[in-house]
């Protein structure tokens, strides 16, 4: 995993706490540092692989290409390098960044909404629900659902995943919340039940799936960015980017919500609207991520928690920082996944689970007096 605190650490002593409790300068420094880290990780990932590519030399040409000043491969650059970067690694890095940001921000928003640091789309079954939605279209897309598939094109699978995630999140919220109070125990247990149920339904689909579809279904178990291409980027990007643009508007409300729903409402927050918007955004971003990369776990737990430890829980800073750290962590994990056992590939979910599951346990053990559990 990328070390995120280096740029921050230099300024640490001066910023940690000036005695007045103002953590804003620290938070800004962390975000600035994370921007540098994200860019560095992206470049490193582009350069890394079976073929080493001089990415820095390619950068000006890539800029020219995306600005429309260049069609096809530039002169003076090996065609092989160009194709490796533009058609294989760049879509994968971009998709990793989108998915990582979406998962981490979804986790942060969900934790704010449920007022608990253990809420995460992967753990409470939202990813499983999204997976079911996507599996429906992958397996039945050429049969019963063919007309819908024809209508929605590459967006069919992400939209189905979004629908699955949305329904699961709404169900969870209805089950877990009584009289405005969300019980975390009920929530986690309901999440397990819903996850098992949707998993069983996905399992049923396996029986009717053909070989090719089976392979597509398989990768949801652990998640993978293998098979990234520009089509996948284009299908996921609109939903995820829309979520990333909307989410800063939730920050003030989520901050007030740390006091509880009643107190947030006393402070002038329209709590119901905040909840609705959060649920739609989380379901959308999770659905889009699951559709293109399967169920990558624990990013949504680890990233927000690390950031809260570093710079405090203020959502105005936590949400953008989570997007950056989530993106760089997932790209780093993916780079590891595709190099560690090269030429084979490891599902990225294995790496995030290895890093994330012990972390989850650690949070559990540290927080014995867990609020509301």
């Amino acid at each position, binding site marked *: 995993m990328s070390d995120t605190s280096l740029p921050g650490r230099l300024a640490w002593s001066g910023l940690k*706490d000036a*005695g*007045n*409790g*103002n*953590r*804003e300068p620290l938070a800004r420094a962390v975000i600035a540092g994370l921007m540098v880290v994200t860019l560095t990780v992206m470049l490193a990932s582009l350069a890394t692989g079976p073929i080493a590519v001089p990415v820095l030399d390619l950068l000006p040409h890539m800029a020219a290409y995306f600005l429309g000043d260049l069609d096809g491969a530039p002169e003076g650059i090996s065609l092989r390098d160009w194709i490796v970067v533009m058609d294989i690694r760049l879509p994968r890095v971009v998709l990793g960044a989108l998915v990582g940001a979406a998962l981490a921000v979804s986790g942060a928003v969900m934790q*704010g909404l449920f*007022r*608990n*640091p253990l809420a995460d789309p992967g753990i409470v079954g939202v990813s499983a629900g999204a997976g079911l939605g996507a599996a429906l279209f992958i397996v039945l897309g050429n049969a019963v659902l063919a007309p819908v598939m024809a209508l929605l094109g590459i967006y069919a699978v992400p939209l189905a995943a979004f629908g699955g995630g949305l329904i699961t999140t709404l169900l969870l919220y209805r089950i877990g919340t009584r009289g405005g109070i969300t019980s975390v125990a009920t929530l986690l247990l309901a999440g397990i039940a819903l996850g098992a149920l949707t998993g069983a339904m996905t399992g049923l689909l396996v029986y009717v799936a053909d070989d090719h579809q089976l392979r597509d279904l398989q990768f949801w178990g652990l998640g993978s960015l293998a098979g990234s291409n520009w089509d996948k980027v284009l299908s996921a990007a609109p939903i995820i980017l829309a979520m990333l643009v909307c989410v800063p*508007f*939730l920050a*003030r*409300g989520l*901050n*007030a*919500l*740390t*006091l*509880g729903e*009643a*107190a947030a*409402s*006393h*402070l*002038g*927050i*329209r*709590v119901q*609207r*905040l909840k609705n918007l959060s649920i739609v955004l989380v379901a959308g971003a999770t659905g889009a991520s699951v559709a293109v990369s399967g169920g990558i776990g624990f990013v949504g737990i680890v990233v927000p928690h690390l950031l*809260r430890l570093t710079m*405090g*829980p*203020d959502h105005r800073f936590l949400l953008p920082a989570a997007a950056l750290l989530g993106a760089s962590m997932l790209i780093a994990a993916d780079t590891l996944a595709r190099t560690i056992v090269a030429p084979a590939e490891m599902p990225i979910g294995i790496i995030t689970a290895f890093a994330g599951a012990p972390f989850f346990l650690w949070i559990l053990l540290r927080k014995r007096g867990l*609020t*509301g559990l």
Partner: protein
Amino acid sequence: MFHQKMPDAVPLTPDLVVDGVSVSADKVPIVRDLSFKATAGEVLAIIGPSGSGKTTLMRAMTGEMAYRGTISLGGPEVRGLAPEVLACVRGVLPQASQISFPLNVSEVVGLGLIDGQRDRQARKRRIAEALGRVGLSGFEGRTYQDLSGGEQQRVQLARVLCQVWEPLDPVGAPRWLFLDEPVSSLDIKHQYQIMRLARDYAINGGGVVAVLHDLNLTAAFADRVLVMRDGEGLAFGLRDEVMRPELLSVTYDFPLECLAVAGARPVIVPAEDKA
């Protein structure tokens, strides 16, 4: 949720009018046909045994619970007011406040600064001032969860004070403080400190409505008292009219007496304790 500036001021008169109000929770009536009027510039105490509907009434008045009847906060009906409008008119201190993430004290108090004040120095000053008023100067960097119950309650009060800092709004209409058992977890020094603060808020033109359990604190600080029992208003009036041992004994179903010592305020004590 998105508002950054203060909404246009609502035309206000100095009164909080509660008229024929009933509140039910899950179809069980909690408050029945209650009417009274609180005036800005005064402290109104609501007393009564546990389960008499004090907190429910409070939650109706703050716009948190649906009610039948009329509750008007200086003119407009409370149920019709948007949260962001209400938030500029009244602050609410709830009974207990759990916070879900480790915010520090200045961040908690800063949540009360809802007027979109961007100037960081001004924000900092206001937070420090509010903490000073509740006797927690220098606590800015402390983590909320690490504080004692009483300190947490005072931090919450500082947050509420930030929200309705000026007892009068720019056009001179009063703002309101709703305090639900504001001193329940405080030691006696801080009980008096907080109640003085509430009284100062009223003296400067604001309205204060407080649910209290301590009869002597009520006698010391309330201008008017509403006595509740079984969801109904048993008595409402000026403090000295209401705080009579006979009435209170009936209210609490417990024999109470007034103990008068020369040169001091009469004290309400259990009857059998009289030496």
